[in-house]
């Protein structure tokens, strides 16, 4: 099995289609995976071990054994799979994630807690600290 197929089999088991969400290989290609690995070269050795799959073993059994025997490889495979998936513009659109966006605001705008009385209640409950003069 090629590296590509070996990884996509694992990734599709980890991230299958479900409801409106597509499976991994419907939205991410192996080029995306390689790009992710370039951001995290520290994961490359574990990743390589993780995809050195015995083709006879199914994805779930392979992940099960990696998880038990080679935590580093398991972590590399799963980290790359999930991060690559949620970087996909299509996936982001489906879950409504614009990324860590820039949202300017008016620092002088009156905050709702000042007008709806909620902060007033905190103040009305009175002093909470223990004063210490003379101690």
């Amino acid at each position, binding site marked *: 099995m090629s590296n590509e197929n070996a990884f996509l089999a694992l990734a599709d088991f980890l991230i299958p289609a479900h409801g409106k*969400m597509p499976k991994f290989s419907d939205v991410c290609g192996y080029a995306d995976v390689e790009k992710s690995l370039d951001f995290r070269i520290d994961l490359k050795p574990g990743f390589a071990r993780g995809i050195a799959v015995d083709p006879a073993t199914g994805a779930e059994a392979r992940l099960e054994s990696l998880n038990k025997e080679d935590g580093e490889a398991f*972590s590399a495979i799963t980290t790359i799979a999930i991060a690559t998936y949620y970087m996909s513009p299509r996936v982001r659109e489906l879950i409504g*994630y614009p990324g860590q966006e*820039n949202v*300017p*605001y008016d*620092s002088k705008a009156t905050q709702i807690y000042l007008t709806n009385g909620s902060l007033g209640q905190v103040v009305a409950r009175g002093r*909470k600290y223990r004063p210490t003069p003379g101690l």
Partner: protein
Amino acid sequence: MTVEVLAERGARARRDEEVDVVIVGAGPSGSVAALHLARAGISVVVLEQGEWPDYADYTGARPEHELVSTKLWHPNPNVRDNPNDYPVDTSTTDINPLMFAGVGGSATLYGAQWMHFLPSDFRVRSMDGVAEDWPFTYEDLLPYQLEIEREVGVSGLAGDPAYPPRGAYPFPALPMGSVGQRGALGMEKMGWHWWPGSNAIPSEKFGELNPCVRRGTCLTGCPEGAKSTTDRSHWPLALKAGARLVTRARVKEIETNEQGLATGVIYVDANGRDRRQRAKVVILCANGVGTPRLLLMSGGPRTPDGLANSSGMVGKRLMMHPFASVLASYQDPLDSWRGPFGQQVYSLEFYETDESRGFVRGSKWNCMPSGGPVGVSGATGSKVYVAESGRFQDFWGANLHENVARRFGHSLIWGIVGEDLPEESNQVVLSKDLVDSDGLPAPQIVYKVNENSNRLLKFNIDRCLESVRAAGAIETLVSTPVRESGWHLIGTTVMGDDPKRSVVDQWGACHDVPNLYVMDASTFPTSGATNPTATIMAVALRNTRRMIAERRNQKVA
């Protein structure tokens, strides 16, 4: 002259020159000392093992953010694996210490939650019969706290009844997002204290700091240059005032003469060469792990147990604030990837001692957004979660999609910081086998979460669950004590009047070596339960002012 030119000029070492003061560490505490000493006309060199931050390296605005930041900007130096940091031997600790090496120090990665200690924090022995009182009071420190807030550019709302009256914050509080409003709703339903978050993030342009645009990645470096760190708030001014900063300079030893007075330090420069910086006064600002490490490394034949350690207290009483977190998901959208991340709301409802709860002292809670889809999935670093639940399938497959749908954009996190009581068995020692990139011994942490902390966290988690459920939470996840949570490093060169029981006096001067000072949180006799940086910087300013005022009486070699 630009900051870059000044920084470049300062970085050149001058052979055999003796300066008035050498400071180890360019984090919040070292930066305060450097700025104020330089302004007083005192010659200062600061040695910092890390480098100037490059804001282009902060990935917050880029799609790969969640992938890259979990390595490059991880707060645990052992995970980051950057040669500028020293590694930490964590084989004997329940909690990993977190820190960062660079101009700006660990605050490069801090949440910028800005809290003063409370009056009772300075009087725990008198009020609660535990640990020790501080040699000074809340009121003594308040003027320095307010001055530091103006230097840092803190935003917040005055009038919190959990504190004595104080002046206004320099900037209005950051806008409270849906996350903060939902957190506050739960507290309001319970009739408990909450207050809009105070943060070291100016809400308006301030000096070299840009206004925050709520990108929500403060804990992995602010790509906007909006979170206040001293590379922007203090260093441009300190360099103009004449302070010099040498980066990639790792101090390996404090030198002393026959009279036991400090004469300077030896450091390893960027090319791996040993250099000497002579100074009349040495100030350590290397944090609650780095400072005792350096003192322990500096024990020569005259002081085999470490410098300034005749009390035997160097490295002991490490406090790290055991921490728990509660993630709560709600049906309605909360835009919970959006910042500030910072604290949108905090609560001091359970801060003070109530013995009926079965523990002493208390906690501070802070309400924060839960972040991007990878983080809230609970699936990354799956090994950790799998070990707890037994089955990796719980986090993957259809479960992954369902967990993300329920949590992403719909959840908040309450962080619970508990006061950590000092115990001599919790300590920093030198590792016997682990070394840093210069071959110097790494610190080893010997630390157990104590029974008081366990009870405190359990009580607070139960209350927190009541609050989030009162506001309609449909799912809650608890993590306690969080192993990767040693962001507050306190207590390892305790201050006090008695040289047999303490390492430094109330001004940070070592009892054994009167021209050697400590100005970071190592000196704190107790930890409070609030985030400590405000107090660290205020105490550093108080000590520095005193040093300037007493300069003619300073004993030097």
